[in-house]
């Protein structure tokens, strides 16, 4: 589902920021394409990690899990690197001429740290819903939520401080201020929810954490785009955007989005009809 969900943004980034995205893909070349085998290896290792044979041997379980995590960390970093190169057109010709395969710039570390650490509050919410029937782990999940929020907030501060002045002004100004505020408010909401949940996760607490997470994700997505828009010459893309906008099918897309969304909800609801697994 993660890969499938990623296809939609991948589709529209090619419409909105084509030259930058394609150029970064091409410049990084085989090094960028390595994310595909890394994803294949990572996902299959996760399946492998669930097998009885691997679970029985602790060293094997740790090794398999560590390699899988390594694959996903590499993929995440590659996206950060690709994005930073895509918004640096002045670096393209030199990068190509040098035959480089890695775009190592100081901006990569704080940016990747922020998005990497930002994944853990999402994990905490997911675990909270999945494990809400198991009180013994509630405290650990709440601590994961609070701890990762604190780490994410610190990474966000470092990222903001290391942004070029012009970009930071956009994030803190009219264009990005509202979205940054939404993201921070979402974070505060999550922190309150997890603080409430240390004694035990409740439905209300989880709903609060989920609402906060949604606000943070929405806010940070927009903040990220504000930075991108400050980096690219959007006026130069106007002609291509106008050309693409002439394509029909939007109405039909909305119809199928609703219909297929309903069928997806129906399919998920069928899981409830399953007879329970016998104990033991």
């Amino acid at each position: 589902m993660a890969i499938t969900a990623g296809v939609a943004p991948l589709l529209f980034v090619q419409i909105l920021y084509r030259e930058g995205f394609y150029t970064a893909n091409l410049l990084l070349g085989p090094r960028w394409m390595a994310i595909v085998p890394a994803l294949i290896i990572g996902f299959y290792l996760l399946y492998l990690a669930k097998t009885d044979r691997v679970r029985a041997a602790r060293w094997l379980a740790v090794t398999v899990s560590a390699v899988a995590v390594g694959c996903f960390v590499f993929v995440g970093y590659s996206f950060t690197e690709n994005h930073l190169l895509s918004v640096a057109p002045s670096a393209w010709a030199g990068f190509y001429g040098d035959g480089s395969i890695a775009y190592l710039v100081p901006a990569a570390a704080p940016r990747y740290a922020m998005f990497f650490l930002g994944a853990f509050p999402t994990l905490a919410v997911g675990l909270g819903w999945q494990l809400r029937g198991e009180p013994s782990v509630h405290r650990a999940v709440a601590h994961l939520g609070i701890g990762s929020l604190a780490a994410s907030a610190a990474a966000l501060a470092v990222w903001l401080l290391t942004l070029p002045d012009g970009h930071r002004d956009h994030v803190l100004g009219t264009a990005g201020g509202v979205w940054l505020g939404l993201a921070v408010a979402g974070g505060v909401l999550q922190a309150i929810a997890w603080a409430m949940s240390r004694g035990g996760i409740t439905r209300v607490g989880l709903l609060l954490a989920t609402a906060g997470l949604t606000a943070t994700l929405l806010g940070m997505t927009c903040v990220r785009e504000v930075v991108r828009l400050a980096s690219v010459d959007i006026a130069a893309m106007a002609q291509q955007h106008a050309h693409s906008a002439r394509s029909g099918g939007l109405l039909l897309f909305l119809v199928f989005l609703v219909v297929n969304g309903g069928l997806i909800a129906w399919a998920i609801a069928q899981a409830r009809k399953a007879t329970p697994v016998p104990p033991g």
Partner: protein
Amino acid sequence: MELTYFPIHDYGPVMKGMVIGGVGIFHVFLAQFAIGGGMVMAWLQWSAMRTKDPQVTADIRTFLDGYFKILVLVSFVLGALTGVAMWFTSIQVSPRTIGSMLDAFHWLWAIEWTFFSLEIVAGYVFYRYGPRLPDATRLALLGLYSIASWFSLFWINGILSWQLTPGAWQGPEDVWVGFFNASFWPSLFFRTVVCLTLGALAVCVVVNTMDVAEARRRDLIRRASTLLTPMAIMPALGAWFLAVIPDDSRSWVLGGSPTMTNFLAIAVGASTLIGLYAVAMRFRRNLTLNIATSALLVALAFGATAGGEFVREGVRKPYTVRNHLYSNSITPGEIARLRARGSVTADPYPLSDPERYPNDQVRLGAKVYRFQCSVCHTQTGVNGLTHVAGSWTSEQKRLNFSHLQQTRGFMPPFAGNAEELEALVQFTEWLAADEPAQWPLSQDPATTAQIEAWLVDSGTQRGGH
């Protein structure tokens, strides 16, 4: 749309078509297997609900709950990932082509994404909860999976077939004209039959690994192999496809291009063998598909898929979008302008290895090769410049390059000025001479004038067949 220069990679002796072809064939085979596998399983589930024999019902359930796990693992993970790989590979090989496909059809691609999401969810719910669900729900989920995956094919097929037969399509506003193009329906029906065939054959392989009595195994195989029956209409669908594709494309697969004819023969031959075995099974009741036979037929089906996909890609030459975009990412309307100003004059990307070349003229030739030729040719490897033009005399090269579209009907017109053409001639001869450290400049004004005359004579339009 303004011409955009992208950085171009060199894969040494490997042709870029081989890179995208390798990933593409693997992905298409996998994706069509996943669609057909879903259809066969829905059919078996329905079959299990109709039979009055509880043993058969139990066998089918056992099979579905075991086999489906393999199917979802393969199709969900590898199918989804090779799909992403296809996208990234397309960007590596021809960013302008994939960009054009998105410009024209991004909302249809987004529709396809909704169906793919439905396919994944329906499949996963069956995978995770199927064994504990009632029969009617199982059938509904498998039906949903099959329909969603088939519609995924429906949308992608329209976009792919548009590349070969765009018809009256002129731009993104003609989305439906382009989508329901001349080769849309024959291609869709043909692929649907291929999906059913792959699914049925794969089922036969897996059934042979089950620990059940011979008679029950034969019964399962016979039920699954019923879905090989639509293969009977494959020749008609193939003929329909050939009838609607452009005349020149048809002439290449029917003998005009030995390579394409051979690949078509592989596809037809392999499909015929599978079909003949399916027919034999219908008439000889004691004939069945053991694991060796069914595995061999799956391998033949892979060969047929590879041959078919090669032909489908090949018959588009010299275009990636017929009449709109040449294989080297230059539009027909840009040829005249590039001949006037030079094709690489505005290319911002330097050579990554300028010290390799003996002088600026050969360097210019290398840039022209990179921009105009390298998508289909290598320097000295597969389909290398030295192989296709190395034995020509200098005069022959100048004449043939300037009349490229007439020299070979599946080549685009040369899109540069006379200086660039001469530089490409010198680059090719330098390569053929084994890259000596010293190479004389070719700067005879009479030669330049002759090339200019030939370029005018050849015109900027596409050549004959």
